[in-house]
């Protein structure tokens, strides 16, 4: 298999397979959750579940003051790499083309060198997060193999992407091929690891807010 064939396979069938597995996996996870159902609350409501649910969905993005002091590192490093991932994935023009091909919708992107800088910041934040996970007693106790696998699978696309953009190391086709392959690995693991939080957290926050909202508390 020559490099060209490898790149073609990665951009073609492999991407389709990864997308298929990811979407199928996400839908199955959602159905598995929703099929368990939830008892209707017979108590007399004080507030509205729906309002509480939506409130918490966005409000939980902003940590409360005390948590910010106590878990400052987790929050800051977490936001740095999440925002970084967002910028790198959704505001880099070549990536926007992928979404355009899939969804038919397109939007403006940031200058590529800004995205490149963001990638480096994101990688540094992810490495810091890993060190923290290893050093902090609570995190070390909580973490299992899947946490470290997910970390690796998240940082790989960033590293290979940075290499591809800066044309470091391998030949053009291999750089781009390996980068897309690492993204496909991320896509395949998406529904079956804690990466699923990316979509289930909206459900979780909604339930949290609903339970509290029913009782008139803005959680």
């Amino acid at each position: 298999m020559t490099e060209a064939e490898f790149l073609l396979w990665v951009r073609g069938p492999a991407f389709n397979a990864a997308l298929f597995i990811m979407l199928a996996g996400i839908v199955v996870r959602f159905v598995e959750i929703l099929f368990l159902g939830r008892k209707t609350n017979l108590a007399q409501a004080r507030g509205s579940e729906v309002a509480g649910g939506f409130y918490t969905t966005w409000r939980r993005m902003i940590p409360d003051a005390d948590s910010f002091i106590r878990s400052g590192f987790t929050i800051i490093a977490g936001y740095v790499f999440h925002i970084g991932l967002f910028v790198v994935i959704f505001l880099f023009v070549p990536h926007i083309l992928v979404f355009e091909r899939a969804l038919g919708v397109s939007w403006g992107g940031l200058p590529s060198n800004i995205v490149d800088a963001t990638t480096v910041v994101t990688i540094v934040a992810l490495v810091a997060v890993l060190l923290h996970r290893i050093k902090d007693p609570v995190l070390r106790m909580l973490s299992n193999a899947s946490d470290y696998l997910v970390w690796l699978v998240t940082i790989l696309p960033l590293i290979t992407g940075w290499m591809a953009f800066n044309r470091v190391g391998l030949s053009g086709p291999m750089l781009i091929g390996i980068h897309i392959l690492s993204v496909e690995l991320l896509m395949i693991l998406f529904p079956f690891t804690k990466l699923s939080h990316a979509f289930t957290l909206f459900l979780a926050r909604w339930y949290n807010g609903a339970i509290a909202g029913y009782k008139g508390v803005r959680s």
Partner: protein
Amino acid sequence: MKKDQTLGETLRRQGVSRRSFLKFCATTASLMALPPSMIPVIAATLEKARRPSVIWLSFQECTGCTESITRSSSASIEDLIFNAISLDYHHTLQAASGSAAEQARETAMQENHGKYILVVDGSIPAANNGYSTIAGISNFDMLKEAAEGAAAIVAVGSCSSFGGIPHANPNPTGAVSVSDLIKDKPIVNVPGCPPIPAVITGVLVQFLTFGLPDLDHLGRPKAFYGQSIHDRCYRRPFYDKGLFADTFDDEGARKGWCLYKLGCKGPTTYNACATEKWNDGTSFPIQSGHPCLGCSEPDFWDAGSFYRSLSTPTENIGKAAVYGIGAGLLAGAVVGSVQRARKQSAVKAHQRVTIDDLDKES
């Protein structure tokens, strides 16, 4: 022209001054993208270089590569090249034809056995030797025979280097490249469709002066194929600034912005177009506003649309997405209802817990 004369002697016999020879060496160094400091080295070696005999065999090809070499920009180079090398056989350029032509080829091959350079353009049909023949001899046999006595083989054009358009899907003739068939001779691939004229002559001159050039993993001289178009493209600042042309006639295109979104294959294509440029340095595809097709890379005909960007998937991902969601719903329904039933049965199996059921022992 006696065969054993050195290039220097030949030039002097033609009344070419030493100063002209220096000019030729300077422009050749520039052609081979060698630093100017190499000019004296080139002059010294070129002077003593023997004039090798060159056999040019054309198989399944469109004569584009031949067109390209005859368009070689520096006429003075062309004269000297054709004086430097003795092109003993080129069935398009030579006057002789039929048995006389073949006779000339065979005598050249015998006289210079082991020393001549075999230049090939066009791919070789491996499926059936009858697909392409010259004077009744199949390309396959002719190549084998010619390769046997060649000092080295230069595969000019993507067809001879990687199979080119005949090799493209569905490849009816089972076309293969030279390196697929010949394993025991040093082969220099000079891909491109066609390759840049200056690159063809450059490789020949480099071969003449320094022998087998430094090759990359696809057998291409690094002097010309060492860097990708993207790395040397003058529009790279636009790529870095995120300024892209969206259509061929929008503001971006008129302003000469990067053509990535229009399918430019510069990042994955290794060739000298961005520096050597075409038509005597006038321009090259990207400078004329058209995305690079990647013609010096293997299977570029099959690498998806020339106008789809490198980062986009080549197949219909919309379909894959729909199938994925559909399969998810199906599998989800099955798995979900099994789990739902499992929960229902747990609820049914519930035994009321009274204050007497709180201790294990009792």
